[in-house]
């Protein structure tokens, strides 16, 4: 009997290498050497949107999508909003822009509330955090008329849409565009990415949003795991190129996948 189940050896190896590299980068981060991340162009977009809001003296809206926090494939999107929310709130507080966040996530509401309160404290303006208006909870059914009507009335100058989005994407993005907002949209749900790209001024695609969250929050766990995942990507690239060359030379590459 073999130690590892027949046919699953390579998968096990890849899994171990990726997990091992994440742990290695985490160890390094604990020693004070944080892995660096590429600076994404969308970070300047966030600053531009905040500047526009300050200049026009109008609100910035933050929308964090839908989803349930008990389902593994929806979690990454929801978790990635937290880092972006903290950064945006703090910048808004520093520059004096008013941020408004109607959230549709019942379970995450408490967490997001704390994140925003702390961000205002970090910016040194805790008195500007309005617990009744900075963040409000909107159940999924009520959010559609709320965003459509309120955005038309309050005319936000900028909006950031992140997280896990369903079919509401187009309804909300259109409402905000109509209200004259400059929007940055990002999601990881495949069938809504195109609507985010088509309807918003700037967009983040899938993992870009996670990377954004990691870059902005400077959280060692997030940055280290991104660095570790990149090792997985290098493995894929190397494996593909080697396999391509060997396959062209007539080697049966399927025997590699033991």
């Amino acid at each position, binding site marked *: 009997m073999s130690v590892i189940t027949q046919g699953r050896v390579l998968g096990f190896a890849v899994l171990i290498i990726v997990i091992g590299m994440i742990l290695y980068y985490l160890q390094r981060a604990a020693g004070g050497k944080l892995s660096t991340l590429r600076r994404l162009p969308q970070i300047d977009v966030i600053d531009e949107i905040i500047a526009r809001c300050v200049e026009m003296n109008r609100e910035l809206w933050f929308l964090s999508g839908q989803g349930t926090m008990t389902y*593994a*494939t929806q979690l990454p999107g929801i978790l990635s909003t937290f880092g972006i929310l903290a950064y945006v709130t703090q910048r808004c507080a520093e520059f004096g822009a008013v941020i408004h966040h109607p959230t549709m996530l019942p379970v995450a509401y408490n967490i997001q509330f704390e994140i925003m309160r702390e961000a205002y404290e970090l910016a040194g303006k805790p008195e500007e955090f309005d617990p009744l208006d900075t963040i409000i909870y909107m159940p999924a059914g009520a959010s559609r008329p709320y965003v459509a009507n309120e955005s038309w009335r309050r005319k936000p100058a900028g909006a950031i849409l992140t997280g896990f989005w369903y079919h509401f994407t187009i309804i909300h993005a259109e409402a905000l565009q109509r209200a004259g907002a400059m929007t940055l949209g990002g999601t990881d*749900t495949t069938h809504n990415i195109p609507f985010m790209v088509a309807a918003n001024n700037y967009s983040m695609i899938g993992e870009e949003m996670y990377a954004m969250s990691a870059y902005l929050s400077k959280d060692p766990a997030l940055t280290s795991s991104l660095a570790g995942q990149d090792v997985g990507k290098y493995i894929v690239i190397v494996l593909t190129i080697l396999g391509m060359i060997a396959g062209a030379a007539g080697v049966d590459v399927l025997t590699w996948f033991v």
Partner: protein
Amino acid sequence: MTEGAKKSFAEKALDLDHRILASIVFCIIAAMILYPVSIPFPVSNYGQNFYDFVHSIPAGETIGFMLSDTPSTRPQLEPSTTLSLMILFEKDVKIIFWQDEFMGPPIFTDYIAITEDLLGRELEYGVEYVDLGYVAGEETGAAAFLKDMRTVVAGVDVDGTNLDDLPIMQGINSGGDFEYGFFNVACRCTEPMYVRQWQQPYGTKVGSINCAMDLPAITLYLATGQIKATANGLLGGAEMEYLTGHLGTAYGQTLAVSFGGLYFTILVILGNVFFFISRAGGRRE
């Protein structure tokens, strides 16, 4: 944009009330459904492959079928699902059904009734098919169910009959006991989940019935053969109707949808033309 400023034609056109746009699409679709015209169209290779895949299943085989449609997607997926079931039952294939979503069970009952109408005979429960009912738990549920069916459903079918008393369930307890399988995931985008939990561990040849929205996200699995074939939304249904010679609701709907698409195309072009005219006229967004 300041109030009272004189607006150009293009700007006025762009400010057109959305209620007018919505009313027009309402009228177009309603008219096309009430007065359908038939247009011949080429069958795509997805439709042909799915038809061939259903036919490739050997007679007498026992297969698994996760049939969990939702009311919203039912008009699109009913033709492809029931016609596949008809072909399978005609070949005396035995099918074990379950649902992974709470909306599914009543629709499943309807689908069996429709299939019986198509076949012109009653299906024998427990011999030709069995319904194991709703299985909760999304991915964990699917993994647990396909590993050990009897434990997860507590050894009984949806009506409480002991599974060991049903002839169809003899020797079947895991996803690996099926050579072939189908899943109708409606619009939930859970095809990768079944690839992960069914095709990968057990090597079952799976076919997917899904709404059109999911197609590009599963073409990569079709290319690698992880999913053998797909019935792609309403078009897949219309193709099945055409290939089996049972023209029905899907064939009629495709035309209404076509005109919706035509209207959309015109709107996108007009919207962009007006947008660029107004931008060239000096105003910026």
